[in-house]
């Protein structure tokens, strides 16, 4: 027995050595985790707390002198046009959320509870709509439902012989529908997750008392998942009021001003960041308030019947109705993914998109132009890739360390770190961008237009995604896995690198890819922070849409989608089919 013992360091001597020895030993046993904790606090203060505080303080400062003033608020809310924008945002949010719920709840019910055919197809639709950047969908819908030249309207005129338009996308309804067609996957994922927990016996109990399939669904099933429907309604509402791309592309030509586009106008020369900060406050407060409401709703777990026993689930037989349900899913798929994608693809290979699909209209010129001639296109692709990669790496690394400290309770105030890491979740991207602008664009750091500023902003913005992912991954690794290594003689760092890290590899890769994907298409945070040489693909796409060259724009969108699809493909291969759609 002694042979092994000799190979290990001798146990230290007892207290007999006295107080001095005890103190020295105590210092030797201080784990590096304390220093790490301090470092993380500084990083999170820099990334999360400072921009928010700066945003807040700047809103009360006079532009020139920096003295305290309320005049920014007076300016921000002093014109009817600005107030209209607030009302428009709220109405648009409600409309989009309502449409998204109408689109997605039947789909979620059909996939989770019935024998509807084509469930794989429906999943593909949801994933497709989720992956499609919202501004790209908006461009697709301009080609489909522009008032005169849109394909849908031209088809309508051909069909009826009339001069009128069936649907004008440059309108409030158009804006609401296009946004809903992008955001319904959120509702689908939430509601389906809740429906999956409802046991068939809940419905059986209603059936045996005389309720038919539809009555049971209306009176039992839907009320059971009501909190998740409401919760996802709130999320879509918040997404909508924070969205910049779609309202800018569709709303500005239609003269519909919303909060985000108004904020953008405050940033046009001369930049009035103080007024923008003041004007962003309602967005921030509404978001914080509603996220709190949403948490409360979903925290009432007892409401969602999570019965461990009798959880057997049988699919409801719909009979001929199952084709009607499938038709609905197919319709949503056509409107959200297939049709916009098709017209974009067509336009990207066309000399003039309005001439439709024909051989003499076919060309590779648009792609050629972008790849070999355009001064910014390739730079922006490169920018997008390395900004996103850097932000994803930083976010996952920070999130992993914070999640580890919080979950393993290594520090007495570890929760503070977790709170800071999750805080950006309640900050709309556009608000965060203004905060970063206010805090770091001007001296002393003078980061305006640099890659660093964009990477920092992306890291902060997507930290919650990475944190939720890392935290779930770490919770899945039993602490005893590490303790087993330690008691056999490995130090904490060695245990983490030899045991924990390999076990987390897959989950972390999934988190990295998700952050990369959402960062690569992020528009609202980027557009306030980019300089001439640091434009990303999303920003360049927006610039192209202002120029109105839809063929080149479509081709560029095609390139962005290609990059995204490659990454999603890698993720599905390495991490699992549903890695993008797991409910966080």
């Amino acid at each position, binding site marked *: 027995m002694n042979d092994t013992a000799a190979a290990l360091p001798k146990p230290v001597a007892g207290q007999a050595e006295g107080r001095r020895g005890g103190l020295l030993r*105590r210092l030797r046993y201080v784990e590096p985790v304390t220093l790490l904790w301090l470092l993380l606090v500084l990083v999170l203060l820099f990334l999360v707390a400072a921009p928010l505080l700066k945003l807040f303080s700047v809103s009360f400062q006079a532009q020139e002198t920096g003295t305290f003033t309320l005049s920014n608020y007076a300016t921000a809310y002093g014109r009817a046009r600005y107030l209209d924008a607030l009302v428009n945002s709220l109405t648009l949010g409600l409309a989009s959320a309502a449409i998204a719920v109408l689109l997605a709840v039947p789909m979620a019910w059909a996939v989770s509870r019935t024998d509807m055919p084509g469930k794989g197809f429906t999943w593909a639709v949801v994933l497709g709509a989720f992956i499609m950047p919202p501004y790209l969908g908006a461009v697709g819908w301009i080609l489909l439902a522009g008032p005169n030249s849109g394909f849908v309207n031209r088809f309508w005129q051909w069909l009826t012989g009339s001069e009128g338009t069936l649907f004008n996308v440059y309108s409030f309804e158009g804006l609401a529908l296009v946004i809903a067609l992008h955001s319904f996957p959120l509702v689908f994922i939430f509601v389906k997750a809740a429906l999956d927990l409802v046991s068939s016996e809940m419905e059986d109990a209603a059936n045996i008392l005389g309720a038919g399939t539809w009555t049971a669904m209306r009176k039992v099933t839907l009320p059971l998942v009501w909190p998740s429907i409401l919760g996802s309604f709130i999320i879509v509402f918040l997404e909508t009021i924070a969205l910049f791309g779609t309202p800018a592309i569709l709303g500005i030509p239609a003269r519909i001003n919303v909060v985000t586009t108004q904020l953008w106008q405050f940033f046009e020369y001369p930049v009035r960041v103080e007024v923008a900060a003041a004007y962003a406050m309602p967005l921030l407060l509404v978001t914080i308030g509603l996220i709190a409401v949403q948490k409360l709703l979903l925290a009432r777990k007892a409401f969602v019947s999570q019965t461990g026993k009798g959880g057997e689930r049988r699919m409801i037989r719909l009979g001929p109705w199952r084709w009607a349900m499938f038709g609905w899913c197919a319709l949503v798929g056509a409107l959200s993914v297939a049709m916009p994608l098709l017209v974009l693809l067509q336009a990207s290979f066309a000399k003039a998109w309005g001439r439709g699909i024909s051989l003499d209209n076919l060309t590779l010129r648009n792609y050629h132009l972008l790849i070999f001639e355009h001064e910014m296109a390739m730079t922006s692709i490169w920018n997008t890739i390395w900004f996103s990669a850097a932000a994803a790496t930083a976010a996952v690394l920070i999130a992993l360390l914070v999640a580890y400290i919080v979950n393993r309770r290594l520090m007495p105030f570890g929760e503070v770190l977790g709170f800071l890491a999750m805080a950006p979740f309640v900050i709309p991207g556009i608000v965060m961008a203004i905060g970063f602008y206010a805090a770091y664009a001007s001296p002393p750091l003078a980061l305006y237009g640099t890659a660093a500023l964009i990477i920092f902003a992306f890291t902060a913005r997507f930290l919650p995604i990475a944190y939720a992912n890392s935290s779930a991954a770490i919770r899945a690794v039993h602490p005893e896995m590490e303790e087993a290594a330690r008691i056999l003689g490995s130090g904490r760092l060695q245990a983490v690198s030899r045991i924990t890290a390999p076990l987390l590899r897959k989950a972390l890769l999934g988190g990295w890819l998700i952050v990369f994907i959402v960062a690569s298409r992020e528009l609202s945070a980027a557009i306030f922070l980019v300089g001439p040489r640091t434009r990303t693909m999303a920003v360049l796409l927006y610039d192209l849409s202002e120029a109105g060259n839809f063929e080149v724009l479509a081709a560029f969108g095609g390139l962005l989608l290609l990059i995204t699809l490659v990454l999603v493909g890698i993720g599905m291969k390495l991490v699992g089919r549903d890695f993008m759609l797991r409910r966080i």
Partner: protein
Amino acid sequence: MSRLVLRGLTKAYGKLTVVDGVDLTLAAGEFVSLLGPSGCGKTTTLRMLAGFVEPTAGSIELDGKVISAPGLVMPPERRQMSMIFQSYAIWPNMTVAENVAFGLKLRKLPAEEVRRRLWEILEVVQLGHLAERYPAELSGGQQQRVALARAIVVKPAVLLLDEPLSNLDASLREEMRFEIRRLHDEFRITTVYVTHDQAEAMATSDRIAVMNAGRIEQVDAPHLLYTRPKTRFVAGFIGRTNLVEARLEGSEIGFDGCRMQMGQINGVPQGGSRPILLSIRPQSIGLHRVRPAGGEGRPVTPGTVVQRVFLGESWDYVVMPQGSGLRLRVTAPPLQVHEVGEAVWLEFDPRQMALVE
């Protein structure tokens, strides 16, 4: 020689004291169980032994050197201990052989010796044929053996086991009890075994420390714990018992018409007149249709059967002694059948009674 000494070991989380002044000494090669209900502090005590938890007060000494005290905790990796966890904590990303060899490689032993000791231990736990498998491909019992092999192969100064059998099914659990004891007899590693299952503790241990509410109630060999429980908690926790309030009058003990000389009961202090509590095991009470002779100071008293349950291996009767509200549980062999309401005679054996606090 004592290998492990716990002195006044205490752990408090805020106002909640989880472990409260535990004193315990283990001789080298001894196998001691910490037995108690969930929440009694046994696992926290074990985790303090391993160095995962810092004590609030008291100390732990290994071979005469303090390894744990407030503000002074030798990290787990330097304690030369090994541990078997409730979840097994077999690393799913390593094969059986890699799991077992992990500790040996950390000790920077020559490759030849690592291989020799790895195969030696795999043979001992009968896992040689599964060396290249991954844990996900093993049954629960096999995973348990991997955990055992991984802990024993490093020849630790102390082996710690944290409810290692609680995730196994009943028959496998019984088998593993004997396996653990067999390995202890073979390697003689000083062992601390945490469990809430008294049968497990009895099958494996040299001594058992019964814990309750953060304190050790009694430390004794299994049979002494059963026959001479010192506290009300131990008497009730180890096996089933009747706790009877009795009175000590001079040199006599009495309850409900039974009188016994106190010299016949173990551990009763001399003199005085005061109420006491007796533990009387159900199988130590005799049931008779006619009044027995009651020799050798065995008191008898009449009673009535009020309830009965047949358990296959035995009858479980509840008998009320005449003129008392006492309900005594009595265990009788299967062939000894009494009807409910039947008048019987109870015969007590003072040698099998214990005075408890």
